[in-house]
């Protein structure tokens, strides 16, 4: 069934945060690799747009949901199982990022990052734990992909809170790996690093530098596809993606 061109044929992937910069790349790669994909994001219009671009109607389901609402996530689970019968690859990409000098940070921004990046991820991981475990029990590969921090001691001035949350996600992934590994569910933590604008220019657009980044959504997607296609007995547990010409700090 699987071939070199479609290594993920027969897999059912859920991409939470599908319409983001990274999410779009991963969604495309998964569809191209032959997987059925459930695209999840808050904005239905953008989901529609993405689904049109992907142009694989029979293998794509879109569900609008807010990951901070556990019932929304539960609805995604129900809709995915309803449409495709099982779920064996869950990619949690939903996240927001705001940066500033710490003393100038806005507490509401911290709350939003903790809410979306961490709590949303907890809802997603918990809600999909059951279908992933079911898939593993049936002898299928089962993967949970999280985006974590590059390393615990990464020096990212102006992104203290985002980094703290990302480190928490990394730590969560490690613990879940121990908890679910024996049951056959692989937990992967990917840590891509993007160059951040060097200037101290004010503004909240943390994504300004990444359009020129050598670490692209496509490269992250390639790692996800690779991790998912490995034989079930082996887990590509953590991957750090750096720009080759990264400056030492």
């Amino acid at each position: 069934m699987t071939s070199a061109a479609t290594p993920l044929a027969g897999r059912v992937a859920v991409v939470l945060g599908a319409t983001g910069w990274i999410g779009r790349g991963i969604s495309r790669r998964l569809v191209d690799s032959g997987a059925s994909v459930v695209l999840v994001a808050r904005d239905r219009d953008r989901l529609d747009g993405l689904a049109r671009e992907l142009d694989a109607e029979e293998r794509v389901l879109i569900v609008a949901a807010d990951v901070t609402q556990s019932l929304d996530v539960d609805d995604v689970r129900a809709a995915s199982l309803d449409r495709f019968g099982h779920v064996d690859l869950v990619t949690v990409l939903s996240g927001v990022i705001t940066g500033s000098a710490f003393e100038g940070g806005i507490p509401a921004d911290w709350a939003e990052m903790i809410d979306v990046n961490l709590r949303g991820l907890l809802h997603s991981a918990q809600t999909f734990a059951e279908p992933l475990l079911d898939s593993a029990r049936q002898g299928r590969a089962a993967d949970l992909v999280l985006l974590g921090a590059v390393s615990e001691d990464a020096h990212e001035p102006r992104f203290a809170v985002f980094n703290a949350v990302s480190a928490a996600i990394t730590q969560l992934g490690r613990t879940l790996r121990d908890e679910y590994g024996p049951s056959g569910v692989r937990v992967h933590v990917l840590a891509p690093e993007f160059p951040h604008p060097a200037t101290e220019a004010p503004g909240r657009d943390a994504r300004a530098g990444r359009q020129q980044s050598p670490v692209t959504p496509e490269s992250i997607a390639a790692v996800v596809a690779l991790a998912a296609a490995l034989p079930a007995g082996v887990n590509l547990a953590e991957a750090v993606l750096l720009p080759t010409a990264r400056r030492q700090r």
Partner: protein
Amino acid sequence: MSALVARVRRLPEALTAAAVLFAAAIIALIWANLGGESYTDFWHLPLGVDAGAFTFHLDLRHWVNDAAMALFFAYVTLEVRRDIELGELRDWRRAIVPLVAAVAGLIVPALLFVAVTWGTGAADGWGIVISTDTAFVLGMLALVGRAMPPQLRMFLLTLAVADDVGALAVIAFAYTDDFTPAPLLLVAVGLAAIVGLRRAGVWRGAFYLAPAVVVWVGFLFSGVHATLAGVAIALLLPIASIRPADLRRAGDRVRAFQLAPNADAARTAEQSLARAVSVNERAYRTLTPYVMRVILPLFALANAGVRITADSLQGAFASQLTWGIIIGLVVGKTAAITIATAIMSRVRPGALGGLRMPQLFGLSVLAGMGFTISLFVAELAFDDPESLSRAQIGILAATVLAAVLGAAVFAILSAAERRRGDVRDRLVRPLDPRRDPVLGDAARARTTVVEYGDVSSAFAATSEEMRREMAQRFGVGVAYTFRHAATATPGVALAGEAASEQGRFWEMRDALLSEAPVESDRQLLRAASRAGLNLRRFRADVARGAGSARVAEDAADAEAMLLSDTPAFFIDGVRYRGPIDADAINAAVAVALTATLATCASSSPELTPAERAR
């Protein structure tokens, strides 16, 4: 004098209504026996309209019996519908006993009447003994049954409602003569207009008036008794429980009026307030004083005036007709209701909901008061003045006899009840932190508050406010718990218990409150999500009925304590009887707390209620 007026004002509504009715009957009797024909002449005065070729006349008595009484029958029907859709009759398990008793109470007296009057040609009057006078019996119960549990009144209301339905059917089918179907078209047109108004969402009562008159005229000309117009119209008036959306809107408008107190805002606020309550409910409220204080007394005045002379009394008490009525009402009603209830309580144990047979016997004796509808049917059944007079004497005698006997039974019961002490106001199961979700520290609290309620009830918001204030005011001094009343929606109660499994009962309660009215499982899930529950476990717990034992226990306790209205509060194990608003309840809690602290200070300051109990 003014002290007397004030005392009369404080009497229960039912009691004043019965008193006014009684007074009217006495006045009618005196008036009819003054000598001369003034009573008969007056009630035969014609009244009507002449408009060109069109003339329409009824005598005064018929204006009362056919027109004013239509309002009475509408009122009764409104009450029946309210009970069927929102009240006691909705719960079939509870309603079945009074319903069976009511049917027995319709049939047995009629059979007894026919047996006694057999062969006299008076058997046509069997409809006289079928119906209990709701107004009189409720009034008597309020007077002589004050020590009785409130369930007895609910039982009586259900019984009376079923009994009235039977009586209405009998009047419609057995006592209609000279039937001409054509005017029923008018009835259809009027009713259609009312349905149309209802569909269009018209909520102002005034718009329903014109089609109502059309319906009445149609019934009058058709020969079917015109009062049935009241029944038909009342059956169509919309009824619904209060919708939280309407309630919220009304609240918003009232607040808007507070901010800008002008005539426009007042009008909008008034309208939205009226709109929040269904037409049925408002019509019922509006009709109550007129029916109780005007229509029923007027009817008594127009119909109870029996000429009583030595001859007429002698004739009456020698006639089988009079005895048929007395035996039918006094013996028939009592026997039928008592025996039917006794049988039903054997067939369905627990269906009496805490009422005891002696109480129901007393009630069944009172049910022999058959005043209003009996007089009404007598008027329809008998044309010759002699039979009518005998029937009326029989009715008056039976009503007085039933009232006196019933009062005697209740006097004995009340004395017994007083000797037993008032056990109804005691909480049967003390607060137990191992089974009850507790707010505050049960081990350290000096006062406990136990609520029996339903999270989806209209009063839930009060409970919520009270709880917040309680926590603020008393801190750990007060432990508070919530239990499910017998009337609580089962699905909602179980959802609360499933949340309790995750230690989030109170969060769930708040979430359910913001979802109210809870009508779907989806709302339960949404509340669970909002309360921060693990949805998978929540679903599993609801599915396996976790905590259903507690729900059942709570309901059984509530029934044993005869809690009919929710929410019911127990402060330190004693039923709180004051108004259900946060301030009043918290004030009562403060009093209880102060009292406990005072006792503690005088004995041992460090002992909590639980420790002292040991």
